[in-house]
């Protein structure tokens, strides 16, 4: 298609115009030729008639002078007759071919050429003049100086007034007395014919050009332009612009083509949109799944990490219990050997206390490893919270802390170990108090929430403390991770809480802003 556009002569329009133009040229030429022939024929016929009448007029003009045999008169008349424009010469010659009179005086007395029309028009053989051609040819056209000439020969028949004239020039037996020969110029007629021919040619050329131009315009309008528009449209569509549509300006085949093309584009666009929608949906789905997998993986990693840490901690703890038993036992045994108030007894007390502390750490570790013996049942979260807060309020650590309790009116019943829950809540409250250096508000809020079609009791602990840095956030639930001063925290509180909550199908969420405070959300599955 594009190749054709680069070569306009190969386009349909050009081919049509050339074909029609050629056809018109041929037809016009044939018409032109026919008209030209007809014109020539008509003009010749007119010229002949004129020549015949001129020859006859010459005959009649000289008749009287002939009858009276006045040669000078005859000569004078011929000279007079030859004066008008278009008359070359007029001659009269006898049956033997001798020119008796002529407007061209130098010809008088000469013989006519017997092979010319003057003789051969009637006689087939100049030597045998008796043999006549059945239909005599009286005229002839020949080229002369200054243009074409028409020569006509008219016989002068014998008549009684001639043979009876007193001059006795002609006998009664003679049939033909002589001939009038008129030589007429056809220059004027030729000129008229030429002008007419030129005009005709001009008309024909104008006609052919006009028709070709008109056809060209029509073809351009109804074929080339719509095709060009279609081609442009297809080019744009091929380039990816499916919003393009071809304007429909007609109801002909081009219009049908354009509307078919448009509906095709519409279908293509719909298909592409559908495909893009699917692709988009697929991408979203993939992104969603990837996120889910990433989260699951992260959770799994975290769980696995905690579990392996838990296993390790349990193993270590279990092994430490044995030597610790020895330390405790022998400290006690040794203590009995000293008086109760002695320095030795006091020192041994330190060993016993510190051993007990070790034992406590190990217990926490093992709780974290989920080996706690538990007394599970349905417990009311609000009751446990109230009890825990009541318990801590009287401690010195909490004297400058105000508890804001916003507990859900509805009973939040969870299946689990009440003492474990109390331990978790205690951990949260102690952490909150530590984060605020023992001064500020702790907000404790409970509410019922739904997550993934499961109902949870959410217990929120919000402090106004220092917040948790982003760096520390991932390590929050790891055992032995603590930001508290050495000796103050074991780094097991949150990991133990996390272990317990996980075990019963709950989870802990944290929101924290450094400098503003931290909120812990403990979510426990509600019992049915």
């Amino acid at each position, binding site marked *: 298609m594009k190749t054709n556009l680069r070569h306009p002569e190969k386009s349909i329009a050009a081919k049509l115009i050339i074909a029609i133009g050629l056809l018109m040229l041929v037809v016009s030429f044939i018409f032109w030729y026919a008209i030209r022939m007809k014109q020539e024929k008509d003009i010749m016929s007119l010229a002949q008639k004129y020549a015949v009448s001129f020859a006859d007029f010459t005959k009649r003009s000289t008749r009287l002078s002939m009858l009276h045999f006045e040669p000078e008169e005859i000569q004078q008349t011929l000279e007079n007759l030859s004066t008008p424009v278009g008359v070359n010469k007029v001659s009269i010659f006898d049956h033997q071919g001798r020119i008796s009179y002529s407007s061209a005086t130098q010809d008088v007395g000469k013989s006519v050429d017997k092979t010319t029309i003057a003789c051969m028009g009637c006689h087939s053989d100049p030597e045998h003049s008796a043999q006549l051609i059945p239909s005599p040819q009286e005229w002839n056209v020949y080229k002369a100086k200054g243009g074409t000439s028409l020569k006509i020969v008219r016989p002068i028949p014998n008549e009684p007034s001639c043979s009876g004239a007193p001059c006795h020039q002609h006998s009664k037996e003679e049939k033909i007395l002589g001939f009038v020969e008129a030589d007429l110029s056809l220059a004027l007629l030729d000129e008229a014919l030429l002008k007419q021919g030129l005009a005709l040619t001009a008309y024909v050329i104008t006609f052919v050009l006009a028709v070709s131009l008109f056809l060209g315009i029509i073809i351009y309008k109804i074929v080339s332009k719509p095709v060009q528009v279609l081609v442009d449209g297809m080019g744009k569509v091929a380039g990816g612009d499916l919003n393009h549509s071809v304007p429909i300006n007609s109801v002909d085949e081009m219009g049908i083509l354009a509307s078919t093309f448009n509906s095709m584009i519409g279908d293509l666009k719909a298909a592409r949109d559908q495909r893009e929608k699917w692709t988009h949906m697929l991408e979203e789905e993939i992104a969603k799944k990837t996120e889910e997998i990433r989260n699951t993986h992260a959770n799994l990693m975290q769980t696995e990490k905690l579990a392996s840490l838990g296993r390790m901690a349990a193993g270590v*703890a279990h092994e430490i*219990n044995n*030597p610790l*038993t020895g330390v*405790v*036992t022998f400290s*006690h045994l040794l203590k009995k050997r000293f008086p109760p108030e002695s320095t030795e007894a006091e020192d041994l007390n330190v060993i016993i206390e510190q051993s007990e502390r070790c034992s406590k750490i190990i217990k926490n570790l*093992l709780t974290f490893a989920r*080996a706690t013996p538990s007394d599970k049942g349905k417990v009311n979260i609000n009751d446990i919270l109230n009890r825990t807060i009541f318990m801590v309020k009287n401690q010195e650590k909490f004297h400058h802390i105000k508890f804001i309790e916003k507990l859900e009116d509805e009973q939040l019943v969870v299946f689990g170990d009440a003492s474990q829950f109390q331990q978790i809540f205690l951990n949260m409250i102690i952490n909150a108090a530590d984060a605020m250096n023992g001064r500020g508000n702790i907000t404790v809020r409970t509410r019922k929430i739904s997550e993934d079609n499961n109902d949870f009791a959410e217990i929120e602990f919000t402090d106004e403390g220092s917040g948790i840095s982003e760096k520390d956030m991932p390590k929050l639930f790891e055992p032995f991770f603590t930001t508290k001063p050495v000796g103050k925290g074991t780094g097991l509180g949150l990991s133990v809480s996390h272990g317990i909550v996980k075990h019963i199908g709950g989870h802990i969420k944290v929101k924290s802003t450094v400098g503003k405070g931290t909120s812990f959300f403990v979510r426990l599955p509600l019992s049915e």
Partner: protein
Amino acid sequence: MKKILVIDDESIVRISCERTLAPEGYEVRVASGGREGLTFLEEETFSLVLLDLKMPDIDGIEVLNTIKAKWPQTKVVMITGYSTVDTAVQALRLGAFNFIEKPFTPDTLISAVKEIFDRMDQKPEDNTRG
């Protein structure tokens, strides 16, 4: 004579028990594993066995089962690390009298042992604890 057999693979635990209970008037013998313990049980009669749950040769539960089958008169108290409390509960179901968590103080051990002998004195016909 109140004879007590301590079966534990950890010597410090064995020694601790011995040193705690001997001054209290109990005759204490120690075994370093389940197999050795069962041999001692074949040799003489013990009123009480302090039995560790986790041992390398024979598991505490298995030893408990054997004792319950062969010497139903002998009481068993399990000694357990914290992480094996669930197993200790299982041991109670299988007929152990009680369990003591490690690390224990001499007082805890003495009172636990004393409790058992007190009960035996009260109801000598009671072999098992429900």
